[in-house]
């Protein structure tokens, strides 16, 4: 094969251009990896600012408020019942205590 000088120079030039393309491809590859690392970091960090935690807390708090209200209602009902029962039996209890205090065994 015989090539003249001009053709040889063109070949060298083409070889250089190819090397430059490869160098750019390596740069692009580095950029792809850098972007992937950044995205990976942001995925992990996003957990801290995840609004789901606050939603979960709020939901549980609301549930607790409901359950507390139910307990309050239950005890209010029991308190009212107790008051009514005690009111009804008040005189009987006094009469019993007076009678037993004054009961003499001879």
């Amino acid at each position, binding site marked *: *094969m015989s*090539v003249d000088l001009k*053709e040889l120079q*063109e*070949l060298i030039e*083409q*070889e250089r251009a*190819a*090397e430059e*393309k*490869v160098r750019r*491809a*390596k740069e*692009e*590859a*580095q950029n*792809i*990896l850098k*972007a*992937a*690392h950044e*995205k*990976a*970091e942001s*995925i*992990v960090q*996003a*957990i801290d600012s*995840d609004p789901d*935690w606050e939603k*979960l*807390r709020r939901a*549980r708090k609301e549930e*607790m408020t409901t*359950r*507390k209200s139910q*307990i*309050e209602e239950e*005890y209010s009902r*029991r*308190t009212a019942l*107790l*008051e009514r*029962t*005690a009111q009804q*039996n*008040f005189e*009987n*209890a*006094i009469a*019993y*205590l*007076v009678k*037993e*205090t*004054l009961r*003499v*065994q*001879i």
Partner: protein
Amino acid sequence: MSLLELRTEIERKAQEEISKIIESAKREAERILAEATAKSEALRNERTKTLMTELEAEERADMAITRMNWKGNLLRLKSEWCKRVFEEAEKRISQIAKNGGQEYRELLSKLILEGIQALSGKRFVVEANSRDVEAIRKELKALQERAAKIKNDEVVLRVGTLSNIVSGGVVVSVEDGAQSYNNLLDARFSAATRKLAGEVYKILFGESKD
């Protein structure tokens, strides 16, 4: 190889290397992202678990405190009602003594006889407040006769005044002071409240204290 072939080969090799580099980088990027996603998922699960454990512990404590407060309120309420019963009963007993009617005079006699029955001997001292002493003196003869029947023997009663005693009722003592029987209404009431608190509780609330 011709010059054209050489040029084509240079271009082909360059493209091949470029593709390899880019494909490799893309695969590595995918691996990094998949790893991050998995790590994030694991962290999220762990945090959710921790948060749930914390919230449940807080909730359990909170609910326990709420129930405890309410139970405390109910117990206080019951205790107040019992106290009212005791106070009112004490007032009524005190009123019966103050009125000093026939019913109370008979009660005084019975309190004396109960004391005599519980003590040994046949000579006794009966002490009461100045108001009741008068009533007892009026019944003394009848009392001695009733006491004699209980003891199956002659009984001698002496009456004395207890100073600073407001409560009705009596203290019966053997004459030599070796034994005495406290039948003052205050003492009986104190004993009754100790002994009968459970029963009063049952009558008031229709349930046992425990």
